[in-house]
């Protein structure tokens, strides 16, 4: 792997992102709006669960952070499909950048975007929604970082499987929705039907919610989130392994749009 070539791809992806910041704006602004709308909805649920002095932000903020990180799994994939559409994919492959350089350089901005989106939401939620993080901020940061890695490894797997941008859109939309809802980010796991509760732990978003709720509500620290973070990193390893097995850099992909 060549750090220089990887950095060149990374910087270029940031330039592209700057030219079309609509995705970044969407994933940062929308969770704030939805958290504001849903805060009161969750207040009653949290109070009923014995969370004294709950404002509802204790669930709405982690929930929207995880949900919108999940909704953004298509972003990393489009960084690959765009190059196929613009005819630049073959040029990248013919450059001195290795396949791994290209992959890391393209996915790293997406990981950064997920991270920024979640961290900004948590920080702004303190003054805007009266969110009180009772536990450790470093534990919260470690959890969101593990989630960002995990979701983007899944995004690479979806990209490896999809042959057209249309397929990627469908996979990312359905995948994002399943991850957000069944993972317990939109509705608390306890409020879901039994079958959904049973299936929830097979999704990484479930573990992210467990870790974040532990930090926000139960005063959790780094040790308390070790389990959820380990689960997230385990998912990351599985997704990355499957992506490495399936990804064909010489496979032509079709980009519409």
């Amino acid at each position, binding site marked *: 792997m060549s750090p*220089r*070539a990887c950095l060149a791809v990374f910087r270029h992806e940031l330039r592209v992102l700057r*030219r079309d910041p609509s995705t970044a704006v969407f994933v940062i602004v929308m969770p704030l709006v939805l958290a504001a709308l849903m805060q009161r909805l969750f207040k009653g649920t949290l109070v009923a669960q014995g969370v004294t002095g709950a404002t509802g932000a204790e669930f709405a903020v982690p929930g929207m952070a995880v949900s919108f990180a999940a909704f953004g799994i298509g972003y990393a994939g489009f960084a690959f499909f765009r190059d196929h559409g613009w*005819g*630049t994919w*073959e040029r*990248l492959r*013919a*450059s*001195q950048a290795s396949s791994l350089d290209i992959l890391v350089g393209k996915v790293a901005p997406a990981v950064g975007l997920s991270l920024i989106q979640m961290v900004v939401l948590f920080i702004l939620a303190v003054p805007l929604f009266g969110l009180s993080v009772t536990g450790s901020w470093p534990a919260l940061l470690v959890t969101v970082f593990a989630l960002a890695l995990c979701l983007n490894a899944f995004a690479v797997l979806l990209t490896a499987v999809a042959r057209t941008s249309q397929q990627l859109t469908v996979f990312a939309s359905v995948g994002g929705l399943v991850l957000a809802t069944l993972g317990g980010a939109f509705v608390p796991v306890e409020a879901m039907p039994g079958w959904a509760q049973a299936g929830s732990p097979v999704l990484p978003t479930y573990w992210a919610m467990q870790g974040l709720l532990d930090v926000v509500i139960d005063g959790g620290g780094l040790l308390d989130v070790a389990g959820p973070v380990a689960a997230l990193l385990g998912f990351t390893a599985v997704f990355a392994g499957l992506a490495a097995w399936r990804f064909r850099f010489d496979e032509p992909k079709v980009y519409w749009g």
Partner: protein
Amino acid sequence: MLRVEGLHKSYGRVVALRGVDLEVSPGEIVSLLGPNGAGKSTLVSIVAGLRRPDAGTVFVGGVDALARPKAARSLIGLAPQDLGIYPIVTVRQNLTLFGELAGLRGRELRTRVQEVAEALLLDDLLDRLAGELSGGQKRRLHTAAALVHRPRLLLLDEATAGADVETRAQLVALVRELAGEGSAVLYSTHYLQEVETLGASVVLIDKGSVLARGAVAELVARHGGSVVELRFDGEAPVITRDRPGRQPERDGNLLRIPTAEPGPEIAAAMTAIGAHAARLQSVEVVRANLETAYLAITGRRYKPGEEIERA
């Protein structure tokens, strides 16, 4: 600088290359000439490390490109057949990316971006979005991205396809200049006239095989006598030639008469076709050039856009 030996490549049952051998020396322009589907792009993409051959060897600057593709790629600049630029960033940012990927940085990178932009008349457009350029300007940027790191082997795959006359002339002039500075250039094209302008060595490729190679003048002298073509309404008649030289060839409604003296040949042919003159639609003299050499080598007229059926 480039040595290719015994290159074979098939896509399923379609054979793209059948044992191609090729050499390009530093400072030499080798023009890979052939119609669409002849195997040119497959050959270029294998040399660039984008595809693996089924058999054969590729050495770039003495480096085994199949065993050490990354080392070989550092010597290569590729402008693929299809336009490949980032439309939503500027011309400068496009060139900067490919310079950075080749390991350039700082002042050297900025200088090279400026130089290559000037060489391709893009210097006034450096801060414009690539997507806002005209077709010819985009084509020049596409080629410039392959040159920014001064590659020792330049692979231009149909570099002037779809380009306007001015852009084509600029690119051809630049390629000659680069070769003059010592770069080896493999220039794939289906424009015969361009090959003649480049003064390149020609490798004539058809159906995945190299049919002939040599300087343009050499190929024309060896294969390229003038031809008189008579086109008929319906099947061309059989005529026997009483003048010295090769006998006429029939190809559907075409009758081709190889000759050194087109004028007297036409007069003689008018007599020889007799009553078939009523069906005669046109008479054309194809002067000795690369096109007649192609005709003599392949047995058919050169049609740049034709797709070759491969078995």
